[in-house]
């Protein structure tokens, strides 16, 4: 469980994050989605006890991140953005070192098990310095998973992996998220969409939207949109079209096409087509305009307007 209230962090005079309040419950995968420099890493670093916030409080696994930092760190598995590895150690030695620091007795079996989970059993005795980027990422993840932490915090967990590895890592994260709390950051929209039960879109240090990926999409769009293109001046048709029941927000675009909205589940496109033909015009195009999470994201992060 993670609970943050009014988290603010200043680096000198620059404010990295401002007044972040959020929650992540057990059995939930929550994603921080935002462009580079939005404050994702700063937030995760505060939650893992790496640095204290300038203002605000946060509890992780029931402990305060400043007052009970050690207790928090015992219960958190953390994969930083720059995977922290010692190239001179083998994968096994590295995990053994971490197990010792976490006071795990007789850890050999646990290490084998964790290496198996991330698909690295065969390279257990290989030096980390000789591993590929993707393999290193997996060893880093193994380090975070090793002590079966209550809370897993991952900073860009699939960056630099090939597509097959991405699928594997996502499966591990999803599996872990069933029983524990997972908080991850990403700038990849499809990842947030696929992995997370809940997404927080963060930009310039503020949360600009928060919901399930599905609701976020629906709430932000609110209605379906369509595009109409005819031979001739589309303006002449507007009076007739606006009489159609359910049609909203007709507007002529600069390229001469007409855009309109209608309530989802009430497709008025056949009626529109009939109206066009009956009015004696030739219909060139009548197509849906989707607004992907990508567009929403760009929309939200461009000017920082709140979706609430």
């Amino acid at each position, binding site marked *: 469980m993670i609970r943050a209230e009014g988290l603010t962090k200043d680096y000198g005079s620059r404010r990295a994050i401002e007044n972040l309040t959020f929650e992540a419950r057990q059995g939930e995968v929550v994603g921080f989605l935002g462009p580079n420099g939005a404050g994702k890493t700063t937030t995760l*670093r505060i939650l893992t006890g790496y*640095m204290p916030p300038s203002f605000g409080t946060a509890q992780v696994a029931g402990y305060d991140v400043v007052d009970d930092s050690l207790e928090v760190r015992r219960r958190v598995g953390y994969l930083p953005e720059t995977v922290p590895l010692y190239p001179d150690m083998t994968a096994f030695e590295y995990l053994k070192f971490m197990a*010792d*620091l976490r*006071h795990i007795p007789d850890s050999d079996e646990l290490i084998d098990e964790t290496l198996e989970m991330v698909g690295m059993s065969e390279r257990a005795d290989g030096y980390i310095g000789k591993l590929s980027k993707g393999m290193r990422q997996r060893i880093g993840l193994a380090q975070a998973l090793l002590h079966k932490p209550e809370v897993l915090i991952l900073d860009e967990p699939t960056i630099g992996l090939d597509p097959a590895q991405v699928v594997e890592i996502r499966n591990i994260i999803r599996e872990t998220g069933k029983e524990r709390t997972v908080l991850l950051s990403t700038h990849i929209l499809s990842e947030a969409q696929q992995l997370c039960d809940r997404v927080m879109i963060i930009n310039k240090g503020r949360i600009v939207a928060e919901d399930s990926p599905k609701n976020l999409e629906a709430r932000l769009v609110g209605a379906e949109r369509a595009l109409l293109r005819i031979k001739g001046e589309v303006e002449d048709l507007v009076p007739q079209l606006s009489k159609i029941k359910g049609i909203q927000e007709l507007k002529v675009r600069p390229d001469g096409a007409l855009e309109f909205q209608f309530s989802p589940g009430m497709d008025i496109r056949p009626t529109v087509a009939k109206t066009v033909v009956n009015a004696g015009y030739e219909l060139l195009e009548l197509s849906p305009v989707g607004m992907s999470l990508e567009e929403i994201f760009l929309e939200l992060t461009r000017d920082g307007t709140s979706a609430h």
Partner: protein
Amino acid sequence: MHNIWTLARREYRHYFISPIAYVVALVIVLTIGIFFVINVYYAGTQGLSSGASAPDISIVIGPLSTVFLLTSPALTMRLLADEQRMGTMELLLTAPIRDWELVVGKWLGALLFSLTLIAITLIFPIVLNQLVTPGIDQGVMMAGYLAIILLVMTFLALGTAVSAIFSNQFAAFFGTLMLLLVFWYLIRLPTYITQVSSIVNFFTYLDLSGRFNNLLTGQVGLSDILYPLSLTAFGLFVASVVVEMRRWQ
């Protein structure tokens, strides 16, 4: 203690795969060996005839102090600076260990490696004991080794503090070297230019080499032990504070 030991063990092992450690080891054994042979040879041919006393343990410990003065910075330069550079500091600072445990563990690893090197030099007093009659003074030998161990503890602690400040190894090396030169040579300079006894006493007290030479004579005074120990504690304290401060930056 468990955490300190885990960190020290990793650090100790790391020295054996780094080329710097082998260079340092070679420099120490070679330098001390050459000094030793020259001293013994000199004593055997001219020294005794001119009435000088037989060579004692100081012909090993004396040069050893100079060698450690120059090599300690190389042993400590990467301790914390490297963690900073490689990004593994984030791992250690989010692991369930206290900042001072991290610092002490690192320092202990360097100390254990240095003690290993010092142990190798034990060969020289053993040889010396065979050469001079009626053998060397065991008490003075023990005091000499106590002196060098205290000195190395201090050097490494100061080096750990400097390494915590810099994320660049070279900066850490030269910073440490400078600091060690201050405590080893420069700090007694004021005593040459003033006669005011309180100032002279103060700087004499802070002079690390004076303490070291006191011990080397075999006369173990309490303050000669306490001063390097407190300087060691000070170095480790500063290092811990610097690590802690990095979190708040």
